């Protein structure tokens, strides 16, 4: 693939282990389409960094966030980041396939997760998938996430969505990345992004994964589509 300048994924690495940050920096920087724009030791430092990047107009696209940190863990940090910048995707980095923790991270707004003992290429793949807005969940985690949403039919949040937003939501639920959505609806990628942000706000959910789940449950899309 020939990456152009604006296709480069800007990544912020947040982990309290120096040794892990060094590894991620070396590896991700070696990827042609990924550019590590910053690193932080914890959630608080990450938020400071995001604020200063925001003021310089160079916020990252994806944050790789370790879940096991102190004093503020990665789940809480994800929640804080997503509350302030809901177009910045978070990939959770976790040590074990700890379903509880992964679930909590996804609820906090992470759009994917990687295990700390997976292959290096999986980390890059997860970053790319998050940037594309792709859902990457295994079935068990998806089921839990689904059941944790409110009961169907007891809200009229659907009426708050414009017809354009419903179109976007259907495509999100079908697992389409922003770029694809933009092409299909003949809008710019930036506009697609804005639509997604509004949808998240109106549905009171913190990630596009949850928005997609919600759409599936409300019958906006066929359940045939197996998220992947």
């Amino acid at each position, binding site marked *: 693939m020939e990456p152009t300048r604006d296709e480069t994924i800007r990544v912020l690495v947040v982990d309290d*282990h120096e*040794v*892990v940050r*060094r*590894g*991620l920096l*070396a*590896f991700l920087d*070696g*990827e042609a389409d990924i550019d590590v724009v910053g690193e932080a030791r914890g959630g608080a430092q990450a938020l400071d960094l995001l604020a200063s990047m925001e003021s310089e107009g160079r916020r990252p696209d994806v944050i790789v966030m370790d879940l096991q940190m102190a004093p503020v863990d990665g789940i809480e940090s994800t929640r804080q980041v997503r509350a302030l910048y809901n177009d910045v995707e978070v990939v959770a980095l976790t*040590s*074990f396939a700890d379903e509880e923790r992964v679930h909590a991270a996804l609820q906090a707004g992470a759009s994917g997760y990687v295990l*700390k*003992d997976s*292959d*290096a*290429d999986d*980390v890059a793949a997860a970053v790319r998938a998050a940037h594309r807005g792709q859902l990457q969940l295994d079935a068990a985690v998806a089921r839990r996430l689904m059941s944790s949403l409110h009961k169907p039919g007891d809200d009229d949040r659907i009426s708050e969505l414009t017809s354009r937003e419903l179109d976007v939501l259907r495509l999100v639920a079908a697992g389409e990345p922003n770029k694809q959505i933009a092409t299909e609806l003949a809008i710019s990628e930036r506009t697609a992004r804005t639509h997604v942000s509004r949808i998240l706000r109106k549905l009171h959910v913190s990630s596009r994964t949850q928005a997609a789940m919600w759409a599936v449950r409300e019958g906006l899309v066929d359940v045939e589509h197996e998220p992947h």
Partner: protein
Amino acid sequence: MLLAAAYYGAAKLGQALRYTASVSAIWPPAGLGIAALYLWGIRWWPGVLLGEIVVNGELLLDDSTFPIGSLLGQQTGNMAEIIVGALLLRRLIGPNAGMDRIEQVGGMLVALGVATAISATAGTISMVAGGVVDESGTAEFWRTWWLADTSGGLVVLPLMLAWAQNPVGAWRRIRTWEGAAMIGGVTALSFLAFSTEEPIRYTVFPALIWAAFRFGPPGATLSIAITAGVAIGETANDVGPFAEQPIDHRTLSTQLYIWVAALTTLFLSGVVSERERASRELAEARRTEGARAEEERRRIARDLHDSVSQALFSTVLHTRTAQKALVQEGGSPSGRVGRSLGAIANLTRSVQSEMRALIFELRRDPVHDGLVAALARHASGLRASDGLTIDVRGPGPRLALPQLVESQLFAIGREALANVQKHAGASAAHVRVEAQQGQVVVEVRDNGRGFNPAAGHPGHFGLDSMRSRTAEIGGRITITSAPGSGTLVRVCVPAGTDRN
């Protein structure tokens, strides 16, 4: 008021055996006052002062020729004695000392000795100045005064301190057949020793030692008080070995008797208490040993995860970076560098999976797969180490037991097997786990040398620990053994239905 009354009462008791008009052979009020101010605070001094004024007022009424200046000097000395004694005691042995440590007995002795020296000095000077005592008798007068206050103090002060700490517990300890027998023994032997003309006062000592060994500081101090009381009473009534002696000699004899009896018993009970405490702590340490080992395993797992696992993940990332860089820079993945990088990647992956398995194992509860399996695993570990054969039998399916019950039963079994291994000299041991009629029974039987379970077994703390574990899970433990016929440890626990 109460303190003043008690002080007065103690003074009356002391005056039963007088040396001269104003000096008693034994002066318990000093110890009482020091103990009261030590226990309840220095601010109680007016009570002591009031008692002192009444005592001296009475003295003045009895004998109006008594120089009032001497009386005032003596009174000042006594007050100083009590306040200094209480302060010094707090300083030396801290608050709430129960006389159950050697340092406390020693500190008490120093505080009492210094404080009474003040009173003895002040008293002697007052009496000499007032002309009550001849100047030539100064040294002897001082000595008598000091010994009177210290021996009175040695009876009252430790008694109050030892009992104040936990009166209910102390009373429970003594309120037994053995306690009654001990008190009867001390009393009878004291009377025997002091009612004959023969100098056999040492006969009381076995009973005092009994008290020190079996009843701790409260029993020891009580028996000192009894024997001192008998000694004073009998001598004052002009009976007993000391009554025969001239007055000053008999005073000294009584004082020294109380000194020796009190010191021997106090130090002995201090040593015994220390040993008891040490063995209790050891039993407790044994009991928590398993829990600490468990905690240690989890800590190691956490550390491994925090350091080694993170570094391995980083190694994976760096290796992959190097592999990609090699290709980008025109190198061949099948060249020497490429093959080496591949080997590093593979090695790292296999270390990662070993580490994962290790951490998983370390985080696991020893009874994670059930009581019987855990006992069997533990037994096979023991078997490997010496000639003992152990067979473990129990139901195949996991018993539904609460986690605490399961881990305590495992620990009891482990301790019983440790006893078999250490003490029994057995060639075979059988462990049986049974679930019957709503209860779970664990039995550990061996064919070793056995022991007498009724005899105290200091050093075999495993027994205490098994008992306390059983109590903790509401079970019953029976230990059946006799010399030469092996040992059976049997624990019954009501079986719960859920495992939580």
